[in-house]
């Protein structure tokens, strides 16, 4: 109790800056005055009395010291003093400080950037209340595929549960909103069961959320609008409440506005009760498309809840053997459902890179510190001899390190934020849902602090402990230079440099491989002028366009209207534009067998008339396809397909059949190849696939992409397209409208981001290696000052001195290169899809990397070599 009181009093002294010192001064003064008065009263002359008073009082300064130590927190004062000293020191040695801070900032920054991304993808989770108690239910079928839950199963499951507050289901589906006085628009929609928001998250900012009543069959149709859509489409008008809009053509009343990032795992812009999902009650028990969540009731454990669901799923397997016999429920926490675990192998390279870069940068700073340690050794020796304890010295060095690390951390955080922003900007805006937001939250800051503290440990604490062992006598007698570097120490720096170079080599090899492996556009793709082609996606509602005939008629009319305009050169339609995917199909040949080494799958794209003309490409051979009437059983194949399957035979006139890969065997419907199309990829990051182009009229998917080649600026074309579409069907939105150039760009973001990331890491690794090389070489030169001096005195030329230094550097570079190549092979054997030893057969890459490394060494050795060759031998020897 008393001890706490004393401590508290000391803390208050520091915090309140209580004027203890002034008070003591005044008390001493009064004391001395009173004492003097007394002596004077006894008859002493005043001057003598004052002396006597001081004698009787004792040493004033000593007293003050004792008093001072007894109040406040001396450690705080001492640390503040150390920090001031460290700042002064770092300011004096500006070159060193800047380099060290920059190196640390790079390491900490890259680490923090990677952690920010890792955090968003694995650690943070959904912004909902107690996410560990919200479970996601899905089903596993006999082929071990994870699927949703059917409506019938969900209804059965929901009714008998005891351990759950409730079970909710939802499914995402795009909807068309119209009838509100604006152009019809397509929105991401979600159909959710009544109490979904209460269970999972989701917060109305205006109006109310759905109740169980809204979700009854036959209830009045209602809708909730996302806050984003509310702002953009309705100008945040509060009058939207109670208004009726057309959703997929049917009226629904808006009863509320929901925050967009509410925690519910859907990016929906409009929310509808599950009961309004068309055809819900008719869905078969085997249509497993709903996402199901439940919140565990208070008092029940998550394990109980999981067991109850599994038991219910087993029961249903017995009740409905024909649909559920091989289906079992899978229950995981909601965050496990939507986020990868950070232990997932996909993150391995990420985490490894983050740790490595920090380790390397702090080891680099440790080396920089060593290179400068000679001056410090002397300073430390002096301080030790003046009575500083070892702890005191270590503390001083540690505080210097902390000051460096703190500066590095601040700068690093800035770099990390900038890096994350750059990284995010390379990813299309809608590619990530809102819950994967790369933000700097408290966890990221905690990681920043931890990592920065760890760097202090590596680059300051270990060297500090080492230098605090300084042999005072030896150093002071020898005028403070060169305790010759221990063999062990030198071996460590070499090992460290080798590792650093090896890493740089591995990364450079990856860059060079990725540049080489990165598929350049095919010649035919390069021929497409992507900027003049505007694409837009159209979904024809099945209520108004029930048959393929209706749908292909729509496009024929649409194309005719557009083609009549002077600013439009050509119009076509396709199931997907280039790079936007293609269906997988199994191919069979009439009258011949498949070549023995060829696969049996191809890709299929359905196209309308003038598809290749709109892209600006001519057919390689054969006749244009499909014709205006478009309904013949004819197809085009691309050159790759010909290469793979028709090496010896002329494909034109041959008959093939293409079927869905998992479809049950059915009588083949043969189609005839009438022409050969140039190669265009449908999948980014892959080589050309064999592709069969079928007529859109024969398949007529509900969603298709319109392609329009413009004679003028495509930006003016968007309105034209919308107006023309509205003239045909006033409730039909065109969406995802972008030029083909944008399509290509967006489709390739994945590879682009990966390339950018690895390139950045490589540049940083190379930069760090340069600094590391510099630090080690500079250190070596300082340590060898006397030796160099002696050599020069004995007639060594500057060139020979330079050789002495460069030989060592080249040895380290060579070793690093060798180890790096081996590591590259190991790395590729684990992560690369190609040959593991590809790097060995790529002399150009090898040569480039080697040349780069020599350049690194040259830059790094420049200053140390210059210093060594300009040494004045007399001074060098004498100073040592």
């Amino acid at each position: 109790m008393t001890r706490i009181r004393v401590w508290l009093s000391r803390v208050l002294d520091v915090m309140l800056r209580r004027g203890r010192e002034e008070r003591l001064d005044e008390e001493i003064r009064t004391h001395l005055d009173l004492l003097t008065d007394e002596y004077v009263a006894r008859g002493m002359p005043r001057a003598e009395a004052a002396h006597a008073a001081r004698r009787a009082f004792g040493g004033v300064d000593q007293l003050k010291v004792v008093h001072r130590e007894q109040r406040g927190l001396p450690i705080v004062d001492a640390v503040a003093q150390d920090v001031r000293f460290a700042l002064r020191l770092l300011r004096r040695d500006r070159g060193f400080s800047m380099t060290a801070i920059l190196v640390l900032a790079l390491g900490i920054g890259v680490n923090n950037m990677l952690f920010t991304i890792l955090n968003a993808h694995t650690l943070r989770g959904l912004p909902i209340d107690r996410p560990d108690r919200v479970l996601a239910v899905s089903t596993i079928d006999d082929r071990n595929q994870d699927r949703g839950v059917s409506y019938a199963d969900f209804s059965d499951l929901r009714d008998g549960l005891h351990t759950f507050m409730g079970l909710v289901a939802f499914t995402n589906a795009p909807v068309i909103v119209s009838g509100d006085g604006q152009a019809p628009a397509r929105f991401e929609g979600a159909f959710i069961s009544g109490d979904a928001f209460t269970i999972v998250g989701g917060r109305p900012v205006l109006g109310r959320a759905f109740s169980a009543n809204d979700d009854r069959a036959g209830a009045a149709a209602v809708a909730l609008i996302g806050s984003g859509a509310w702002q953009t489409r309705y100008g945040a008008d509060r009058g939207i409440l109670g208004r009726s809009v057309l959703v997929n053509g049917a009226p629904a009343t808006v009863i509320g506005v929901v925050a967009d990032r509410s925690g519910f795992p859907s990016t929906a812009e409009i929310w509808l009760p599950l009961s309004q999902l068309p055809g819900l009650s008719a869905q078969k028990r085997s249509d497993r498309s709903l996402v199901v969540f439940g919140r565990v009731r208070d008092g029940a454990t998550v394990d109980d809840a999981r067991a109850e669901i599994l038991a219910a799923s087993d029961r249903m397997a017995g009740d409905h053997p024909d649909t559920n016999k091989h289906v079992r429920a899978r229950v995981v926490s909601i965050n496990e459902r939507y986020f990868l675990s950070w232990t997932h192998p996909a993150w391995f390279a990420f985490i490894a890179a983050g740790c490595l870069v920090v380790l390397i940068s702090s080891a680099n700073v440790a080396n920089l510190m060593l290179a400068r340690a000679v001056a410090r050794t002397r300073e430390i020796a002096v301080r030790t001899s003046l009575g500083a304890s070892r702890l005191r010295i270590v503390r001083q060095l540690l505080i210097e390190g902390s000051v460096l690390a703190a500066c590095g951390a601040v700068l690093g955080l800035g770099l990390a934020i900038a890096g994350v922003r750059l990284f995010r900007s390379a990813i299309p805006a809608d590619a990530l849902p809102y819950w994967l937001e790369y933000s700097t939250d408290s966890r990221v800051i905690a990681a920043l602090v931890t990592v920065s503290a760890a760097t202090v440990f590596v680059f300051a604490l270990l060297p500090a402990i080492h230098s605090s062992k300084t042999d005072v006598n030896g150093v002071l007698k020898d005028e403070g230079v060169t305790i010759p570097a221990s063999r062990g120490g030198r071996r460590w720096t070499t090992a460290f440099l080798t590792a650093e170079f090896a890493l740089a080599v591995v990364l450079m090899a990856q860059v060079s491989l990725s540049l080489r492996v990165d598929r350049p556009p095919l010649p035919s793709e390069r021929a497409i002028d992507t900027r003049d082609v505007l694409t837009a996606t159209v979904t024809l509602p099945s209520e108004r366009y029930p048959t393929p005939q209706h749908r292909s008629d729509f496009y024929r009319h649409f194309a005719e209207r557009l083609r009549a305009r002077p600013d439009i050169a050509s119009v076509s339609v396709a199931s997907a534009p280039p790079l936007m995917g293609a269906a997988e199909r199994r191919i069979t040949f009439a009258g011949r067998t498949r070549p023995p080494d060829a696969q049996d799958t191809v890709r299929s794209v359905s196209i309308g008339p003038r598809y290749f003309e709109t892209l600006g490409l001519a057919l390689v051979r054969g006749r244009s396809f499909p014709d205006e009437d478009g309904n013949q059983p004819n197809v085009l194949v691309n050159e790759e397909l010909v290469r793979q399957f028709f090496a010896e035979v002329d494909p034109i006139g041959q008959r093939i059949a293409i079927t869905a890969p998992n479809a049950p065997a059915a009588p083949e419907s043969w189609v005839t190849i009438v022409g050969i199309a140039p190669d265009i990829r449908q999948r980014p990051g892959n080589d050309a696939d064999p592709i069969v182009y079928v007529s859109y009229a024969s398949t007529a998917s509900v969603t298709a992409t319109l392609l329009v080649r413009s004679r003028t600026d495509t930006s003016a074309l968007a309105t034209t397209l919308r107006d023309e579409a509205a003239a045909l069907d006033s409730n039909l939105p065109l969406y995802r409208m972008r030029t083909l150039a944008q399509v290509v760009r967006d489709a390739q973001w994945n590879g682009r981001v990966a390339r950018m990331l690895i390139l950045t890491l490589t540049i940083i690794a190379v930069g760090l290696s340069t600094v590391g090389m510099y630090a080690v070489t500079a250190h070596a030169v300082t340590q060898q000052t006397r030796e160099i001096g002696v050599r020069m005195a004995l007639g060594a030329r500057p060139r020979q001195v330079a050789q002495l230094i460069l030989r060592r550097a080249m040895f380290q570079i060579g070793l690093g290169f060798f180890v790096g190549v081996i590591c590259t092979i190991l790395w590729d054997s684990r992560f690369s899809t190609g040959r593991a030893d590809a790097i060995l057969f790529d002399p150009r890459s090898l040569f480039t990397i080697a040349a780069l490394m020599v350049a690194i060494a040259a830059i790094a050795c420049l200053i140390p070599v210059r210093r060594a060759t300009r040494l004045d031998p007399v001074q060098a020897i004498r100073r040592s």
Partner: protein
Amino acid sequence: MPTPDSEVPYGTLDLMVLKTLAVMGPLHGYGLARRIEQVTGGLALNQGTIYPALLRLEQKAWIKSSWGTSDNNRRARFYAITAAGRRQLAAEAALWARTVSMVNRLLEDES
């Protein structure tokens, strides 16, 4: 914490201060030092040593202090014993008495 430059055994100065304040009422540092000197019969005490002791006791909340005016009109800090200080004094006095009697008995036996 041993107080430097004092021939006063460790801890006894605190006890003396408490006792003096308990008997005399509030005193300033000078008065305290004088009083202790008088009572102990010219203990060779550096008068300054009293201040760390006062700080120590105040931190433990056994005494409290406030500004006041001395007899000859000088601003001075006056120290007074607190209730906690009186309790501590009683406890320490008893302990001291016991210690002294024990040491005495021991010394008598030895001689």
